[in-house]
């Protein structure tokens, strides 16, 4: 145990209708610990979760703030519905900060117990500001009403060791371990910009600590820059009525119906309880959506080697409850137990690997040309324990591998690492270098936006090629879906607030396969409704997966089955039952719209958030290279004939690639026009004062920002 630097006592606030109405501010620079009131204004305009995070962050920073400025904050909040135990997916913690990768607010979310336990300890939100000189551990005891800050130099950095040690120490006994949750990063987060946060929960059946990640945007990098080694919260006494909801009977009734759906239908639908999100690996491969070798193509015959069945039959423990918060019958947080590591500092040890989720298998697998499940799980483990966002890592390494194979970088630049597609050994060594803070791994940890500049300026790479194949937007790396044939999803990734992460909108099936949204107006509506609807999960502390990875048996009878109307109504009813308010489905969207536009204006305030910042790399829109075109030549030739009235038979390959590019880039611009119009923004992507007024967000602080850009 390290030296106690600060300790205070507090009286935990009683939760009323989902809110403790208090938030906690900790400055690790001067060790200030303060309590703030959560106001009615905050609840009305921002609801909670990501909304509260962004509100506090706005007030903490200035346009000059950078990710490593002391005033940058890590803010986390679970939202008013967070912590209920009667419905699936109700334990999400939302985290925001100014991102090292993008320079604008990032929002990322994680399961695990931290957020709900923090609220039940009396805090709707937690702000972490300042920078300490030495590593700290922050501990919040919600039963004793105690907050302490102590030195943390003696603890290990890597999460699988650190979280186990802190859980054991602060629990005090085996039975109390489930009442402790730890937030930590890992040894690599001090050396890379893509560091992530692990949120723990103790699994009493496996007798081990499990982790879920708030992975995107470099939050772990900020945590370690502040010299926070870990946050620990302890609260004993979880029960269904802790949110003190207005109508617990309604929540119970909705929950019982939902759990029956899950029990009866999951096996027939997505099989989330067997394999989790990785159920879609072969589906994505079949539909040409599985990103392969830096998003060049959408699949590979070798994908069968990393099929869901391979993971289920050879690695993932079946039959255990895998919910990452109480009451989640979706139970999709799968794990590979007794997994023997073959490389790195823990080689030879057997560990539990949380995963693989779909993004892991696609990113660390096919997108790197690696079709070896052992290698995927080993990279998964090391990304987690070292504190590395595996999506940014995978997409960055995919970019590096393509640069290497196209001789834009050479062995003398990589320290001799042979970074060809498929070389899992080289990828693992890169991860270990990130952990040690040495070699090419540190350079790779800068992410694609900065690497493009380094490769051009220092290694003489072709800037145009790198702009085309570097899969980043706003500085954030794309998540793992090939989407060249879905114009709507091109917007779903690029016309976003934080950057290309699929949690705003995933429209590929609706657009490319179902052909449900053929016009620009249809796509623009989808890129209005779904991002707004999905933002709402982040305001309330909810997981998106229970919304549509299982649907009611009679969902097909509805007019809008893609929206899963019964589940949308469940959320409205649960919100009303917890808070005592009376919102409807329209107001749900409006609640999100307020925060979504606030975040857009926040981006503008930080020097981003305009049309030029929403530009997509051409690899996102269409075939960059001759190999890509030729790999799907029949499709592209057909499009030239049918969409442009051209005759590919009389065109050279270069002419066909150029014509395809001109057409697709124009389509993207037209889509952008339609989406901005639908969202109430100017042609430059700026929310108009009229729109801000219409949604109740004509706050002087926002108007002052947008008026400079009208």
């Amino acid at each position: 145990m390290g030296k106690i630097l600060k300790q205070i006592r507090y009286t935990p606030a009683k939760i009323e209708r989902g809110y403790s109405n208090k938030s906690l501010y900790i400055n690790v620079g001067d060790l200030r610990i303060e309590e703030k009131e959560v106001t009615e204004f905050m609840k009305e305009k921002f609801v909670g979760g990501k909304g509260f995070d962004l509100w506090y962050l706005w007030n903490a920073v200035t346009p000059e703030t950078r990710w490593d400025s002391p005033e940058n904050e890590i803010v986390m909040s679970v939202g008013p519905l967070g912590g209920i135990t009667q419905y699936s997916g109700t334990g999400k913690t939302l985290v925001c900060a100014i991102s090292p990768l993008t320079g604008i607010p990032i929002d990322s979310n994680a399961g695990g117990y931290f957020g709900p336990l923090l609220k039940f300890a009396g805090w709707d939100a937690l702000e972490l500001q300042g920078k300490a000189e030495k590593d700290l551990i922050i501990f919040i005891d919600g039963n004793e009403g105690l907050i302490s800050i102590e030195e943390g130099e003696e603890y290990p950095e890597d999460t699988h060791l650190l979280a186990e040690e802190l859980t054991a120490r602060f629990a005090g006994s085996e039975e109390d371990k489930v009442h402790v949750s730890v937030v930590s990063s890992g040894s690599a987060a001090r050396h890379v910009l893509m560091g992530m946060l692990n949120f723990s929960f103790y699994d009493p059946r496996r007798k081990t600590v499990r982790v879920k990640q708030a992975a995107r945007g470099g939050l772990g990098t900020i945590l370690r820059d502040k010299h926070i080694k870990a946050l620990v919260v302890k609260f004993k006494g979880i029960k269904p009525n802790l949110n003190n909801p207005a109508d617990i009977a309604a929540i119970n009734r909705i929950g019982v119906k939902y759990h029956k759906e899950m029990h009866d239908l999951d096996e027939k639908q997505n099989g989330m309880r067997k394999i989790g999100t990785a159920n879609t690996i072969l589906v994505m491969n079949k539909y040409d959506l599985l990103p392969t070798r830096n998003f060049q193509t959408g699949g590979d015959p070798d994908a069968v080697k990393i099929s869901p069945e391979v993971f289920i039959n050879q690695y993932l423990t079946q039959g255990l409850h895998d919910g990452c918060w109480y009451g989640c019958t979706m139970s999709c947080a799968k794990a590979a137990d007794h997994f023997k590591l073959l490389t790195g500092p823990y080689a030879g040890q057997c560990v539990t690997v949380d995963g693989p989720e779909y993004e892991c298998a696609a990113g660390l697998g096919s997108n790197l040309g690696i079709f070896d499940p052992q290698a995927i799980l080993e990279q998964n483990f090391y990304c987690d324990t070292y504190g590395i966002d595996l999506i940014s890592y995978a997409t960055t390494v995919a970019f590096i591998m393509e640069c290497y194979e196209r001789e834009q970088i050479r062995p003398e630049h990589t320290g001799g690492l042979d970074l060809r597609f498929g070389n899992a050994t080289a990828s693992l060594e890169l991860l270990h270098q990130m952990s040690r803070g040495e070699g090419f791994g540190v350079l790779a940890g800068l992410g694609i936006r900065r690497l493009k500049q380094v490769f051009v300026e220092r290694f003489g790479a072709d800037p145009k090629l790198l702009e085309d194949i570097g899969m980043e937007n706003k500085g954030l790396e794309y998540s793992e879906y090939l989407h060249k044939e879905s114009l709507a999803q091109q917007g779903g990734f690029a016309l976003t607030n934080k950057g290309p992460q699929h949690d705003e909108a995933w429209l590929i099936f609706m657009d490319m396969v179902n052909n449900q949204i053929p016009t620009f107006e249809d796509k623009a509506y989808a890129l209005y409704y779904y991002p707004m609807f999905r933002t709402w999960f982040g305001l309330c502390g909810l997981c998106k997966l229970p919304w549509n990875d299982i649907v009611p048996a009679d969902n097909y009878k509805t007019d809008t089955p893609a929206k899963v109307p019964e589940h949308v109504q469940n959320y409205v009813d649960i919100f009303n039952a917890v808070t005592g308010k009376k919102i409807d489905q329209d107001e749900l969207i409006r609640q999100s719209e307020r925060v979504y536009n606030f975040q857009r204006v926040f981006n503008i305030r930080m020097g981003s958030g305009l049309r030029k910042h929403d530009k997509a790399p051409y690899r996102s829109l269409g075939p960059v290279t001759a190999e890509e075109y030729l790999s799907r030549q029949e499709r592209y030739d057909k499009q030239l004939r049918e969409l442009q009235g051209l005759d590919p038979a009389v065109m050279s390959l270069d002419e066909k690639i150029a014509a395809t590019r001109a057409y697709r880039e124009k389509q993207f611009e037209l889509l952008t026009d339609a989406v901005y119009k639908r969202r109430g923004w100017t042609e430059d992507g700026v929310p108009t004062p009229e729109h801000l007024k219409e949604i109740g967000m004509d706050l002087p602080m926002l108007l002052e920002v947008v008026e400079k850009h009208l």
Partner: protein
Amino acid sequence: MISVNTHEQPWREGLNVQALLDEMGFIFRHIIVRVNGEYVPEEAYAARLIADGDDVQVMHLIAGG
């Protein structure tokens, strides 16, 4: 010809829903099939014949991520 998700597809005598799904590569399990607006339950895929000129909708449900 038939229409599948508004795109024209060749038709042949004896074509049923299951065969169409197989030929289209629609392996995703979470789908809703309608022929001329009429819902076809999964257990009827093999028996439900598709006639020339039919309008088939195969709605893939996941909205992902």
